[in-house]
């Protein structure tokens, strides 16, 4: 990473630091302060959008570790979210567990199901693995619909809001704090997981599977670990989503979402923690734009235009990024920073 002029790394700690200079720390603190005081200046509607963005960030961090770092492409991420969501939902709704006990169970359940569907990854890769994860998505949703006695099937499942003692996270602002705290924690964990031994193994597997195996990396263990970690994030996100809506249905986890999460990763930039945030925020805002523009188009053109606008635009965004900026917004951001650092000389 390029450092500002006059700053040099003189110790290992400095070399490894994510935030190297005081300015970077200051920017981070200002951002966090702004984020955690935002219920003061934003309306409930914007808080809802931000909460959903936070939940999606958690989920896509998991996908980024799985797909961006370990190159195990998954198009069943919404299905794994559904596992976490229903685990937590059933534990709280049927057994009366507290949310705080159900959340780790949801994460664990999603991780274990992820390992189960990750098993084919030991033998296959690329397209074959994509098919296995697509199959996971559809099989999970089908199973949820079949076990209607405990999951509520197509009717859905009413889920309580989380609470600490007598305090219930009922208002938008309180849930916003809960989600943002977990999202910040998830970002911190995701950023650091890829700096550990496991993360370096993931990157080696991504860059060349055979070479990694020859170097002594246990492919079997690390691929399943990547699936486990990726799906744990998905499970947490799924649980947070249903407890936010206070209702769980399979419609919250459509196949399209799984695709769209990958789209966020492409737009943001694969294998970059900052990229996840860029991708999720920009595409969620795009979705909001469609929500605003769609009804106008429906009046102006045809009633179905609103529905089709969302689909066409989502497709076009991915197409445009794949052709013109395959490295995503994170790469653009690096270029902007480099330009700022080097101006007025280009070297």
């Amino acid at each position: 990473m390029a450092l500002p002029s006059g700053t040099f790394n003189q110790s290992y700690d400095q070399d490894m630091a994510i935030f190297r200079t005081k300015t970077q720390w200051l920017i981070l603190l200002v951002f966090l302060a702004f984020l955690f005081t935002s219920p003061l200046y934003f309306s409930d509607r914007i808080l809802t959008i931000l909460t959903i963005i936070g939940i999606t960030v958690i989920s896509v961090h998991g996908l980024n570790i799985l797909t961006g770092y370990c190159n195990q492409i998954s198009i069943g991420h919404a299905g794994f979210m559904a596992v976490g969501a229903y685990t937590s939902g059933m534990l709280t709704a049927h057994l009366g567990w507290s949310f705080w006990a159900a959340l780790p169970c949801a994460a664990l359940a999603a991780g274990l199901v992820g390992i189960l569907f990750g098993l084919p990854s030991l033998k296959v890769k690329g397209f074959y693995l994509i098919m296995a994860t697509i199959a996971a998505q559809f099989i999970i949703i089908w199973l949820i619909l079949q076990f209607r006695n405990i999951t509520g099937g197509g009717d859905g499942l009413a889920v309580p809001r989380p609470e600490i003692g007598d305090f219930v996270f009922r208002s938008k602002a309180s849930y916003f704090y809960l989600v943002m705290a977990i999202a910040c924690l998830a970002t911190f964990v995701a950023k650091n997981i890829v700096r550990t031994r496991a993360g370096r193994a993931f990157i080696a597997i991504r860059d060349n599977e055979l070479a990694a195996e020859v170097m002594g990396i246990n492919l079997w263990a690390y691929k399943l670990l990547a699936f486990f970690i990726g799906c744990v994030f998905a499970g947490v996100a799924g649980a947070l989503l249903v407890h936010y809506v206070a209702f769980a249905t399979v419609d919250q986890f459509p196949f399209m979402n799984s695709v769209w999460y990958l789209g966020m990763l492409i737009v943001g930039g694969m294998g970059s923690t900052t990229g996840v945030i860029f991708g999720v925020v920009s595409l969620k805002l795009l979705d909001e734009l469609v929500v605003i523009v769609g009804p106008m188009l429906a009046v102006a053109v045809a009633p179905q235009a609103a529905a089709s606008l969302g689909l066409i635009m989502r497709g076009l965004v991915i197409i445009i990024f794949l052709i013109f900026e395959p490295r995503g917004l994170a790469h653009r951001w690096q270029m902007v920073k480099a330009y700022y650092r080097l101006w007025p000389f280009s070297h």
Partner: protein
Amino acid sequence: MTFFLQLVISGFALGMVYALIAIGFVIILKCSKAFNIAQGHFVMIGGYLGFTFLVTFHLPVWVSLLAAIAVAIVMGLLIERLTLRPLVGQPVLAVIMMTIALATVFEGLATLIWGGEYKAYHGVLPTLTLKIGELSIPSEMLIGIIVSVVVVIILMILFRYTKSGLAMRATAEDEQVVQSAGIKVTTVYALSWVIACVVGVIGGIILGGVSGVMVGMSQVGLKAFAVVLLGGINSIGGAIVAGIMVGVLENVAAGYLDPLLPAGGGLANVFPFIVIIIVLVFRPHGLFGLVEIERI
């Protein structure tokens, strides 16, 4: 017994259509190494084109079929030139995401143009009835079998006895050698996409005649993937055999097991995915596919 045979026969007809769709997928994969997730959406577009030409414009069947094929050819050329060619040399994920994005755009376009509603054109296709003992084969299914068989034979002839077929087989073998032999690889890519589109659209018209058209029809593409994986990802013959197998098994399983399941079943929709998982775990290269050997 009659029930069983009835299930087998309708499964066979369905399986032929799956095979047809799967062949389109295999051709693109063999020639340009691209996994085409949008194959099912070609089918959906085909169904809607069939509706437009047959019902809205009242064209005779053969004219409609030719018109739909013409549209499919233009579609194939545009897709290859505009979206896939810039991605030559990019990783697998980029190409797959591109076809997924294409699928999304098609879904949006179909919703915009045809309103995303259920459309049916029963009885517009010519009626043929065949009765064997107590079994009756619905005419749409019979037409499906006939058209699928004809298309498969045409494709086989195209591959075996024509120059462009030879070029396509050679490209599947080794791109660099083909280029140095003076064959334009981009033309071959374009041709493979055109064939896939045409085959998908024909499948769509047949399926539309059987069960009507809606946007969700593109799910049939996912079934075609099960077929492709089972048959071996680079084998056209395998696609045909596996297509029939998946069609029959799906129908029989749904016919017998659906009444036993709590939420009314819907097994026919998940069955292909169960096949996918089993195939991937136990025989990843499929029944007739080649085992890939990797080197560093």
